[in-house]
Structures are given as structure tokens and as C-alpha cells.
């Protein structure tokens, strides 16, 4: 054996989950009347990355952002570039990094409810940063930003979080 096999696996898993998060962004369902905030499967793959990679989950999130900044069309609907991050929905993408750290932390513990706590905390982290940035960048009042950028997505996020926990149980 040459180097550290576990580390090589972390490396390739990072690449795999980065690609999955990017593909999740292309499966984008835009809710009618709300074109500003796209509903994608990215957070599902992000949560799965946290379930599988534990503390290393921050690596795919960061690499995903790096790919996007380098102008590879990996963001939702095939957009790319620093402009998307600075645009109204950029906060949701930047929120992936703290979300991955938080979820990874909780999935590493084996407390009774650590899985659910991790998923909820990660989703709240994405919402907080996303809404804050939506409100700052568009000059929208915080209340309106919550109405547009959080409330319509809560059912979808509950669905995605449940799916992530269920799929996570079936991954060896």
C-alpha cells in the first residue's frame, strides 16, 4: 500500500459529492410567481454529503463554490461566476458551507436525535444567510424577504430533509 487509503477516499468522495451537488442544481423546479428563489435538490445532496462524509462535508461545499467562482456552470440552472454569489440568491449558496460544517458536526455524534438536529440546524443556517443576503442585496424588508425566500420552501425542505435521513440510513 502506498499512502493513506482513507484520505484518498475522502478525496474521491469530495469530487463525487461536488458533482452531485452541481447536478442537483440543474434539476431545478421553479415555483410559478416566485422566480427569485429556485427550488433545487442541492440541499438534499449537501445533507447526504454530511451524512456520508461527516466532518469532511465542508470540502465538497467549498469545492462546489470554487468551481462556480471559476466560471464552470455548476450553479442552479447552469449559471456560474462570482456574479451569482453576489446576486439575490447568492446567500443560499454561500450558506452551504456553514450548513455542511454544522450538519457534519451533528452526524459525527451518535446522540439520540443528532441526525434530525443536524438537518434542522443546517437548513436554518442556509435560510438565515440566504434571507439576510436577499434582504441586503435587493433592499427588501426582512419580513418580505422571509415571506418570499423562506415560507414557500419550508414544505420542500421538510421533504428533502426526510428524504436525506431515509436515504442516509440505506447508505452503508
Amino acid at each position, binding site marked *: 500500500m502506498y499512502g493513506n487509503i482513507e484520505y*484518498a*477516499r475522502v478525496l474521491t*468522495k469530495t469530487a463525487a459529492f461536488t*458533482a452531485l451537488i452541481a447536478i442537483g442544481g440543474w434539476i431545478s423546479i421553479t415555483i410559478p410567481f416566485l422566480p427569485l428563489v429556485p427550488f433545487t435538490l442541492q440541499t438534499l445532496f449537501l445533507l447526504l454529503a454530511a451524512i456520508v462524509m461527516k466532518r469532511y462535508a465542508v470540502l465538497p461545499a467549498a469545492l462546489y463554490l470554487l468551481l462556480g467562482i471559476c*466560471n*464552470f456552470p*455548476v450553479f442552479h440552472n447552469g449559471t*456560474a461566476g462570482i456574479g451569482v454569489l453576489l446576486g439575490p440568491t447568492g446567500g443560499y449558496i454561500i450558506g452551504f458551507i456553514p450548513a455542511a460544517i454544522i450538519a457534519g458536526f451533528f452526524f459525527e455524534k451518535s446522540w439520540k436525535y443528532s441526525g434530525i438536529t443536524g438537518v434542522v440546524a443546517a437548513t436554518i443556517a442556509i435560510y438565515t444567510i440566504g434571507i439576510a443576503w436577499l434582504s441586503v442585496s435587493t433592499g427588501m424588508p426582512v419580513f418580505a424577504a422571509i415571506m418570499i425566500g423562506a415560507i414557500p420552501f419550508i414544505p420542500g425542505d421538510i421533504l428533502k430533509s426526510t428524504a436525506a435521513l431515509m436515504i442516509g440510513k440505506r447508505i452503508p
Partner: protein
Amino acid sequence: MQEIMQYIPGNGIFHRVHPLTKLLFTVIIVILAVLTSDLLLLAFLLVAVFLAAWAGGLGRGLTEQIPLLLVLGVMLVLFTVLTMHGGEVLFTLIPAGIPLIGGGLPVTTGALLFGTILSLRFAVMLFAFQLLVVSTKPGELVTTLRQLKMPIDYTLMFLIALRFIPTLQREGIRISEAQLARGYAPGDGMMGKVRGLKPVILPLILNALGKADTLGLTIDMRGYRRGRADTGTLSFGALDGVVILAALALAAIVAATNIILV
């Protein structure tokens, strides 16, 4: 959804030059695109990159991207119009009669112009990157980045992720077609779309993890991470000089036009 950023075998100009030359060419184009905010100059850059691609026999791959770019351009303009205000107000998207948010989201000329410039800039950068990725073997890119003394772990991570995107995308399509062939009918509309995703995602993730595992083992066995694998070296030729000179000439033209305009 079409596949993006895949190596296409060929023997054009861009296939024969050193990857470092192409990297330099791309970086120069991207810097020019970022620094230019004039509509005509950006259009000129777009045409120049397109001609370069055509000369290298990669024109077809680029024309395939045009519908995608048009959609992205429209979206970018829309985003800018929604978030930026400047110049004259043409009309407002939300009529003044609606409570709470009425009379909001004005469409302005400044935002329209800025959005067009943004989408042109985006098109130039995407084409430049595509020229680099489409004409360079992933192995050659690894060799080049190693010659530049980049840390091998991050180089591999970056390139494998890029390589995985089209592979996993194709796999997702294949799995969903396999489920359809077995008679899985998720139904129509948005809920049908959501239901249809479930039996696709689990196999997709398990397959991706299996691939990642195998690849990790392979990387380890070949000693890539210790730097023991011999990836060989690549040398420069006369064609490299031509490409770099062309890029520099382009930079000079853009700089000169900028100075004249100012």
C-alpha cells in the same frame, strides 16, 4: 440537458499546444472580459474567441452552447433588472395597486444595459474556459498543474469533480430511463416530477459512492498522492508562441481601444 465540459478528441491547433499556453490564453481572455465594460468591445472579444475556436476545429462544440447561453443571458438580464436600478425607469413589474410590495421592481435602462454586458462577459468567459477544457486531456491537465507545483490532492479533487459531473449526469438519465422501462409512472405535473426523483436518487448516490471508492483505491495503488506516479512531461512548440502572441495582440487591441475611448 446537454453534457458540458468534456474532452473531445481531435487534432486542431488547440489540441496541439501546451496546456499551459491554453491556460494563459484563457486567463488573458478572462481578465480582458472582466476589465472591459464596453458593449462593442465585449462583442468583439466574443467574436475573437469564436474565431479562435473555429480555427482550432472546435466551432461546432461552441455553437451547441448558444441556446443555453441565450437562456442564461435572458435570466441574467432579468436578475439585474430585478436587483439594480439606474437610468430612466421604463415601467414597473408589480402594479402599484397590490398592497405591501406594490409599485416595486422598476425596470430601468441602466439595469438593462448592465445585464446585457454581464451576459456577454459571461459568454466570453464560458467560451474561453470551454476551449481549454474541451481540447485538453484530463491527464495532461494533471501533469501541467503538477509542473506548476500545485498541491496534488487539490488538483486531483478539482479535476475528478469536473470529470464526474458529465458522468453522473449521464448516469442519472440512464437510471431514470431504466425505471421508466420497468413501468414506473411518476405522473404528470410538479408533484409527479418530485415523486419521479425518489427512485432515481438512491441508485445514483450508491453508484457515485461505489465509483468514488474504486477511484480512491486506484489513486492510492498508483501512488498519485505520494507523487510516485510518473505523469511524464510536456514540452512547448512553435505553435505555443503563435497562440500566446495572438492573445497578447488581442489584449493590446482592447487596451488601445479603451485608451482611445477614454
